């Protein structure tokens, strides 16, 4: 049984995404300049996550892949989150 590769993504979509990424970069820089204390780091991470989502779903075509791929990505990220989170069980309460 042969494969039917996913639809071709239009050049325009990519360029729009790229523009968005640049904008978001500008935003992070801007946000990092205003002092929000602990919030700064979370804001930075939030925006970074947004950017990576754009890259993953469009540049890397994940949006067009079958569900399985998305589940696996979730699994990998969850694992990393747990590794970091559970390490803090020690670091936070030591």
């Amino acid at each position, binding site marked *: 049984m042969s494969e039917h590769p996913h639809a071709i993504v239009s050049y325009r979509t990519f360029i729009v995404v790229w523009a968005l990424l640049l904008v978001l970069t500008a935003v992070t820089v801007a946000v990092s300049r205003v002092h929000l204390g602990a919030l700064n780091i979370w804001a930075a991470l939030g925006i970074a996550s947004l950017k990576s989502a754009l890259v993953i779903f469009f540049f890397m075509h994940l949006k067009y892949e079958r569900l399985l791929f998305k589940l696996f990505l979730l699994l990998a990220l969850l694992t990393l989150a747990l590794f970091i989170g559970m*390490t803090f069980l020690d670091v936070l309460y030591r």
Partner: protein
Amino acid sequence: MTQQMTATAGSRGFLAEGGKYPGLLGWIFSTDHKRIGLLYLFAVLSFFLVGAALGIIIRLELIAPGETIVSAQTYNALFTVHGVIMIFLFIIPGIPAIFGNIFLPIHIGANDVSFPRLNLFSWWLYMIAALIILASLFTGGGPPDTGWTFYVPFSAETTTNVPMAVFGVFILGFSSILTGINFVTTVHRLRAPGVRWGRLTLFVWSLYATAWVQILATPMLAITLVLLILERLLGAGLFDPASGGDPIMFQHLFWIYSHPAVYIMILPAMGIVTEIIPVFARKPVFGYWAIAFSSIGIAAAGSLVWGHHMFVSGMSDTAVLIFSLLTFIVAIPSAIKVFNWVATLYKGSISLDPPMLFALSFIFLFCIGGLTGLILGAAATDVHVHDTAFVVGHFHYVMFGGTGFAFFGGLHYWFPKICGRMYNKRVATVAWGIMFAGINILYFSMMILGLRGMPRRYYDYLPEYADLNLISTIGSWILAAGLLLMFVNLLRGARNGRPAGPNPWGGLTLEWTLASPPPAENFASIPVIEHGPYDYEQGGTPHE
């Protein structure tokens, strides 16, 4: 089931055909999963023998208090190298890379894995890494003396050849990762028509769970080792208290991989046992889904308990609480497996051929190892037995008594399939008996020593520990004798055993529908599967 006997019995199947080049080259450059599996078999077994020999020497040193045969420094190198070889070169690659490679594709009715070239490449990585590790013994500041755990700050200071050994292990990590990637992809993409998830053999299920652990945990080991090397070369100071680093963070990073690694070791072993028991009880395995999901459960929960190696390291008590709790959770899926195995025997027709003996003794030995694991998992008792001979006893029970015995069981189970001949069953049974006696004498005495307070990694000990150490050493000789007998018997079988025929045990999984040894291209035409791997009711009555 529609399966034709490719290649008449007696023909030497993939052992003869296959391989683009003649002779040895035809092997070390073959991308046939079966040949690669055999390449792994020979490599892994040789390293096992080396590691085992080191184990024997360790025991000799411990036969009496004081310096008996080796100096303290040599002893430290001995258990370090013994540990590194046994963990990274024997037990982790062992079952997946050997039996997984040979039988996973066959079990799902495929002709090879998804990435055959990658598969060969990972064997090469394994060999290169092995050579680097061996080289580290004879070059630089001499063999590493850190213990297989490479704890900083010691590992960052010692003058021995740690960086090279660590680099070797680092490469092994990638070999292991590639195997994992290959298996996950293969199971998802190459299942023959009719091989639903509910028709996967439980061996494949266990390998699938293992593969995920290999993929998600091994990179942590890789980066940890890189950091250790850089700590030595650049003095980056990430773990050095003097420059603000935290030695305990190294332990976190190390165990984030190395605990899940113990389930990389045991899951495939459980898979083999789950294959053997129904065949020799002539019964469908009891609770297929429970066993399948418990494999996933162990892999998942097992990835979150690494802290139980650090209860007395200075880690926060909150972390002790959570990690201890999760550690006990892992015991549950293991318990489920044990109960299902036993239940499978009920009302069966049981024959005690060598593979079955190994499988049943696996259950017993793994239970001892696992139950002692509970004593280690409980915060209070771990404080007492941590880093004592009790831990050494625990992990030899699970690793040698568990994985080791399952490995030998698999060897005796698939031996006729792989080389088309049968070994001498009576001798095999005797060898098993000797090993079973030896292993218990060897390691049970260690556990008592641990409870009485003898620390591990001690080349010398107080007189009060002498008696049990002597007994333990004697046990190691018995075990060695048994192993030697087993290997000799298998070698003789391979050379001039009687032809085994395609299905000597009466198994229903796909490999038994092929000739022994299987032809180079497994299935002449991809099979269409109508029933599950353990359907002894529908399945054709097993033939002798």
